[in-house]
């Protein structure tokens, strides 16, 4: 039983990273119908950036803050320089474009930070031991980041006028423009959110999972699987799906074989795409606009 709970705890913290990336993916998909392959690279960029700033002597919170802001700006810059330039942007085109962006970001990271994995110092806090189940304080930071940042984005999109306006500009671009919502501004805001959320995922996970130039693609793909569970539109379903994915991976590694762990996500992706391509929550025959 202790082992089962230990595996669950590890799976939840891993899942919280997937969940943050899924939130970032949905943030851009709901507004621009862009599937951003570079989402996971934001995490690595923020992790590596804050590591450099810490080793340059900055205090940890300052380094993290600068990294978060920089990656958010980088994401906006990518939107302005790449995404916004394309007329008649389809989802397929966006995948190919952001794949290029991802490759570019990875090459830059390889040149700047080298090929070796690096680690951000752990955030302050005491590790917990509850009934034989050990939880690192950093894992609580990761789950906390999901609650605060992921939950914040969810509320912003669903409850605030701004959030509703963002989604409106995607669903009815002409009508949105008539009532005074700028599609360009909406797109910038969506990419800023995606960049910020990805960066948060990168800095909270770096002390445990390390940061490396090539790590973003697989991480982003896991987030994408979670986002697909939410039909690429539901934050709630994606967050739940991401946590389930993390836990399931952990069980497979613990009870089956660790080599199968990475296969779990792709297996789920295939099953979902065949059986429920609209995601877990939407009724398959619901008309989405």
């Amino acid at each position: 039983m202790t082992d089962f709970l230990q595996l669950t705890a590890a799976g939840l913290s891993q899942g919280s990273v997937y969940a943050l990336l899924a939130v970032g993916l949905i943030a851009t998909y709901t507004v621009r119908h862009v599937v951003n392959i570079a989402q996971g690279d934001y995490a690595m960029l923020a992790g590596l950036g804050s590591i450099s700033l810490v080793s340059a002597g900055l205090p940890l919170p300052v380094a993290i803050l600068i990294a978060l802001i920089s990656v958010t700006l980088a994401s906006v810059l990518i939107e302005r320089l790449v995404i916004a330039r394309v007329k008649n942007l389809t989802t397929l085109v966006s995948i190919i474009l952001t794949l290029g962006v991802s490759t570019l970001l990875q090459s830059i990271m390889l040149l700047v930070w080298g090929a070796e994995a690096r680690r951000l110092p752990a955030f302050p806090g005491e590790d917990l031991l509850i009934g034989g189940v050990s939880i690192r304080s950093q894992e609580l930071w990761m789950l906390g980041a999901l609650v605060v940042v992921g939950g914040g984005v969810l509320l912003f999109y669903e409850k605030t006028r701004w959030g509703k306006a963002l989604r409106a500009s995607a669903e009815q671009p002409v009508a949105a423009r008539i009532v005074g919502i700028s599609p360009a501004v909406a797109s910038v805001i969506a990419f800023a959110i995606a960049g910020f959320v990805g960066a948060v995922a990168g800095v909270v996970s770096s002390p445990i999972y390390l940061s490396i130039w090539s790590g973003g693609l697989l991480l982003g793909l896991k987030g994408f699987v979670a986002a697909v569970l939410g039909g690429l539109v539901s934050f709630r379903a994606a967050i739940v799906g991401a946590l389930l994915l993390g836990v399931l991976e952990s069980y497979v590694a613990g009870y089956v074989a660790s080599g199968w762990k990475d296969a779990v996500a792709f297996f789920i992706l295939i099953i979902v795409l065949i059986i429920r391509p609209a995601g877990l929550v939407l009724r398959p025959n619901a008309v989405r606009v």
Partner: protein
Amino acid sequence: MHRAQRRLLVPAAVAASIALAFTGCSSSNFGGGDGGDGASEEGPIKIGAVLDITGVGANLGVPEQNTLNMLSEQLNEDGGINGREVELIIKDNQSTEDGAAKATTELIENEQVDLIIGASRTGPSLAMRPLVEAAQLPTISVAANAAIVDGSEWVFKTAQNDVVVLERILDDAESKGYTKVALARDATGFGEGIAEIITELGAERGITLTATESFEPNATDFTAQMTNLRAADADFVIIWGITPSAGLAQAAYVQIGVGKPVYQSHGVANNAFFEAAGDAAEGVIAPMGRLLVADQLDADDPQKEVIDQFIADYTEAFDSAPSSFAGHAYDAWKIGVAAIEEAGTDPEDLRDAIEATSDFVGISGIFTVTPENHSGLTADALILAIAEGGRWNLYEE
């Protein structure tokens, strides 16, 4: 199918397949490769290297690349080999077996190199072996598993054998009265056969293997394996892998609070281990070469002069201390170059010259290569080191 469904299905499938394809094969080639003009007895001597510069072996391949670049510059400044310039061509195998095979074929067919050094890890080295054996090209691997040179004709290696490393670990464990061991090993070539060796060597020492777990070198979460090790109820644990994965495994092991002593392999003989494991590194014991504890060696240690010189050169060139893996590359280069100096670049003569290497004082030990032993090192090449205060220290047995 409804429109809404199709709209998601197509891009999702495309994204997944593109991303999958790229996870395996992104990144670029590093260094080398400025178009060879065919080998001859007149032109430069060509030495190829196939290293794990990017991917999971980066902690090994990067310092090895640095070392070879530094040594080839030094050699050419001193006039090359018998007046001939030495051209070093380094290929990145991206820590994959197929990358190593491809790079090896390129070096053999396009560059027509006279000697190959590499690869950094066991898996890629094993992938290279049949190619260089078929091409009859002398090759010096810098990886560990004895299978790389077992029965080989053209392949040599400079890292200490896994068997002698495990002997040192089990001897120490026996002296402390331990009888049960649990193992977490690298799932790739480096960890292949380790459980069998432990079972065999342990039988002579009254030590039984109670559990074996494996981990992928690119894994980030090790809770599952370590939880299973905890359930195994052993007296001590062996974690057998390379950094950063072995360091992350160490951190996960300490986190779940088992508290049994841990031995690691020579795959963590670098400072990157402390970066990956953090405070959890404290107290780990690992057999390794003398490089990382050079400042604690006796003044009359036969390797001390060579090691001190190498540390000084490397630190000056790259502003960081060399790892044991840099040392493996140093030994491979020096043994190879000495053999070319003596025998020239005829493959047969060169191979025989490497096989005749005797009492070569290197970084990882004192090498005496024989037709039966293409590794050249004995258990004397290893010391036991303990992780304390963020570095490796000489451990008094």
